[in-house]
């Protein structure tokens, strides 16, 4: 009986925390946001703005790009505010200054506009590498491969079954 109470307590606690849950998130959104804004093939290393990877709140303005985008035209970028970062980047590029155009061109090539070093750091997964061009936005090839394998397997099985 006592143990039933324990089980009940465990389930209630699990339920409570489960209800609070929604989708997965983490806090390192800015590289992804910059990748999107600048049309890069990889998410740039934190180095581009922070000088080091991982960057912290204390290192955000150590590089020129980070310092420029942090507050542009009086629009500050708050923690996790990727929209503000994208807006600042767009406004910076729109300014059309030679410096901004250089940043745009270099980032598109995956190069640090300040140091000329490649910004595509390590990639993860077995055999992963940075491709020369971005993947198609809606690449269904994986799904077709799986479906093809399932259909082929089914046909082979059917053939074997008929032979019996």
């Amino acid at each position, binding site marked *: 009986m006592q143990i039933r109470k324990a*089980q009940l307590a465990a389930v209630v606690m699990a339920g409570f925390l489960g209800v609070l*849950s929604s989708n997965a998130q983490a806090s*390192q959104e800015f590289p*992804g946001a910059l990748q999107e804004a600048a049309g890069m093939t990889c998410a740039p290393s934190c180095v581009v703005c922070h000088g*080091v990877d991982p960057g912290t709140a204390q290192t955000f303005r150590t590089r020129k790009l980070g310092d420029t985008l942090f507050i542009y035209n009086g629009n500050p970028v708050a923690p996790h505010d990727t929209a503000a970062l994208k807006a600042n980047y767009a406004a910076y590029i729109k300014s059309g200054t030679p410096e901004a155009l250089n940043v745009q061109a270099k980032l598109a090539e995956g190069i*640090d506009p300040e140091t000329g070093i490649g910004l595509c*750091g*390590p990639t*993860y997964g077995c055999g992963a590498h940075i491709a020369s061009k971005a993947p198609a936005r809606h690449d269904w090839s994986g799904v077709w491969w799986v479906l093809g394998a399932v259909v082929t397997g089914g046909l082979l099985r059917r053939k074997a079954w008929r032979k019996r």
Partner: protein
Amino acid sequence: MQSFGLAKSPAQPRAALLVLLRIALIALPLFALLSPKPAHAYAWMIKRGYPSCPACHADPSGGELLTGYGRMISTLTLSTNWGGSDGAATNQHGLSRKLALRSPESLAAHAKSAGTDDNAEAAKADGAKPADADANKAEGEAKPADSAGAGSSNSDADSEEEPPVVVPKANKASDEESTFPNFLFGAFKLPDWLLLGGSYRHMNIFPIGDGKFRTFPMMLDLYGQMKFGGFSVGGSIGGARVAVGSPYARRAQITTNQGKEWNLISRTHYLGYDITPEVTVRAGRLNLPFGVRIPEHTMWVRQATNTDRESSQQHGVAIAYVGDKLRGEVMGIAGNYQMNPDKYRDRGYSGFAEYQFAETATIGVSSLYTFARADRTTLKDLRTMRQVHGVMGRAGFGEKLALLGEVDAIITSRKDLGYVGFLQLDTEFVQGLHFLATAETLDEGQTDPVPGQITPAKVAGQGKPKFGGWLSCAWFIYSHFDVRVDAIKRTGEDVSLLAQLHVYL
């Protein structure tokens, strides 16, 4: 487009192999000389007289996959005792006797398939005391090579255990309950050669200051180990979805999505062989043997040394020794082959040795040396060496208090000398309910000035010390379930309030 093929390791340099061999030539005799022993998932278990890990974990240095015995311990001594009795001495399933009979010494050597309920059940069927059956198993299987070791201590314990424990008649309810700690809440009865487990950790981060509420699955893993005689094969597989640029989960990826998509991950996978009951050699992707094996992977002492169990594992070969008073493990690191390109892979060694100088007190040393062809923190193609060397200690004061600590020196190419340390007090005045207070400090060292560039300023954590304080409450509610709340304040950061749920299969 990303490649999904297997990594073609570019002619795995003979030189690297030679270096590994050289390291092995030096490290192995040193290892044998120093005769090292264990690291822990819940290192504070030392206060209950469990200074070592392999009795409860498949990993000889602790963490993740539980043995049958570990599951039993989790229920009897780790989780809150809802029965209202005084714990191990009065368990109604015959499990108490196992605890009484297994001294920590016997735990050290007995390991990986210990403590299934089969023994107790078989003993019941035979009309014998389950404890005796277990003692026989401990003597017969645990330390065949050491007649004066655990076996004798078991015998001693047996002779001291008078009067004999009377096994209560099992009723239907107790039979049902006794299987609950087993895999999948007792739904399956696994054979002795197979260990299976899984973990789901859900994290909630509450907003304080400018932050926003965040909730995400922090861990979603299945793990297992098969053992055939002295040979074992095991590993973990799971899923993770993290933001682009996240330092978490990425290094354990199997699939190659680099964005915010789900990825299949494997933190560990290995082949192992028990050379003797005390010595195990494993090859594969393994937890780095270093320091106190705490579960808090974001604590600086694990994160800044890249020795956490979140995704800092590396491929390599490790040899672990678990003796009566001494335990340890040393690993030759071949690099993380789930990260590309090769120039970023760390190679070298990592190891620790820990000596148990009192029943509930240990002291140990750890050492790590790695080098890579490029600097992952700046992306520059500069050969980068990283060394971490330190001391650690664990002590239990009765069954209610435990103190853990570690201090390490950090030596990195093109940086000043750095250091990291932590001290954690664990209190458990009610079984299963832990209140923890932790202090930590970190200074990774100031980056050396580069000619022609501005000298980087000293900031907290890089040239100046930064400090952190944790107040935590962990409640092991019941077998398979625990919850934890942490309030963390670190130099230059807002207070973080974390709440997590952990369910293991």
